[in-house]
């Protein structure tokens, strides 16, 4: 019997999820479209005043990105839970937290990365430019993986629970607060001319922390959910 390396298994998991996302492109499109719509609603509500839009841009775009990530959380484990692929994953002879990290990474590529790539366009809509625009993309690039990591804990906890969509929001949103503060803070402070580097390093620290700890919590939540 040949044991595949951890790396090989991890690649297999990521590849399968990416392949599935390619087969179901509409799922990806929905969360991206959601982001665009939410971001476009704000000017309609607040008014087209460029100065006002510029001041709220960082917060609005970050909150919209946060909601888009939240919306896509249901897709991380639910389908696998229902068709039995998840219980097969628990029986793979590799440490579960690492496999979970792979799965969350694939989920981020499908749902977080499009948000990052789309953000400059939305930033322009809100009159951001130059350094602030770059800071928006950078902060989202560092922040959205953290959102996926933390979100996976909530997604695993509510697997198969009635009303799970709203419940996961209640569980996860308080935990998103630091990421939101540092992310939006990076953009705001770069607009204020004090540079967003401090906020970016804090976002990086959040990312490192969540990559180390979230997969453990998610793995134990999955084991609990599948008992």
């Amino acid at each position, binding site marked *: 019997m040949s044991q595949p390396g951890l790396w090989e298994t991890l690649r297999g998991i990521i590849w399968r999820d990416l392949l599935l996302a390619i087969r179901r492109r509409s799922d990806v499109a929905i969360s991206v479209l959601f982001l665009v719509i939410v971001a476009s609603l704000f000017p309609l509500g607040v008014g087209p005043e460029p100065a006002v839009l510029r001041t709220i841009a960082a917060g609005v775009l970050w909150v919209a990105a946060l909601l888009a990530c939240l919306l896509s959380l249901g897709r991380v484990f639910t389908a696998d839970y229902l068709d039995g692929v998840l219980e097969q994953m628990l029986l793979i002879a590799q440490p579960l937290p690492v496999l979970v990290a792979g799965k969350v990474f694939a989920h981020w590529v499908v749902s977080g990365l499009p948000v990052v790539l789309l953000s400059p366009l939305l930033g322009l809509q809100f009159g951001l430019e130059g350094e602030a625009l770059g800071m928006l993309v950078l902060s989202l690039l560092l922040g959205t993986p953290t959102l996926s990591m933390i979100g996976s804990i909530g997604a695993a*906890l509510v697997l198969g*629970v009635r*009303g799970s969509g709203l419940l996961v929001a209640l569980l996860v949103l*308080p935990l998103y*607060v630091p990421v939101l503060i540092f992310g939006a*803070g990076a953009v705001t402070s770069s607009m204020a001319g004090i540079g967003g580097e401090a906020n970016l390093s804090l976002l990086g620290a959040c990312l490192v922390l969540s990559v180390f700890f979230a997969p453990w*919590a998610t793995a134990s939540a999955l084991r*609990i*959910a599948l008992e």
Partner: protein
Amino acid sequence: MNWSKYSAPLAFYPLAGRMIPWFGTVAALAIAVGLYIGLLVAPTDFQQGEAYRIIFVHVPAAWMSMFLYVVMAVWAAVGLGLNARLSFMMTQAIAPTGAMFTFLALLTGAMWGKPTWGAWWVWDARLTSELILLFQYAGVMLLRTSIDDQRRADRASGVCALVGVVNIPIIYFSVQWWNTLHQGASVSMTAAPKMATIMLTGMLLMTFGFWMYSLAVILSRARCVILERESLQLWSKPSSVPEVAGVR
């Protein structure tokens, strides 16, 4: 005395029943004396007038809300690690009291804010963290009630509580960071820098009273949880019923 004996819910039940009146009495005394000191003995603050006296409730309530969350998380960790049913029952019993103190802290904070800052709600770092703490309590409790399977409900909400406890310091720090970034509303909630001894005494007495109150309430709630969950065992062992169900 063999303490491990009391880790079984049915042995814990009568023990808790004997302890509750004591904790209750001590709580009532401490809170009465604490309020007397706080409302009548402590001197009027020269800046804030009489309104500041609400901190004798506000600060102990805020302390308790955080302390109870940590205690809840510790019980959850014990429950997950040792697979002990009583630990999860304690987790379940603590959450509502913790949420109550969080709410009390927010309410008194708002009542204090109106005369002091002229607004019911200020995005003060501590108040904001306290609000998020309330959301976390709500999350833990709602997750438990949404899951039908008892064992899964226990363990899932335990994991949720543990994840939350890791996040509390991060959230607190980030909110403070956010507050310094947005200068303006950063009026600190701390009382006068040099707190008079009498004020400190009152505050500590109130905290002690709240603590004893929490013990009494949590233990009696734990007893309800035991009755609810262990009904099967209770009825299958008739000998234990009179002692357990007896009126005290």
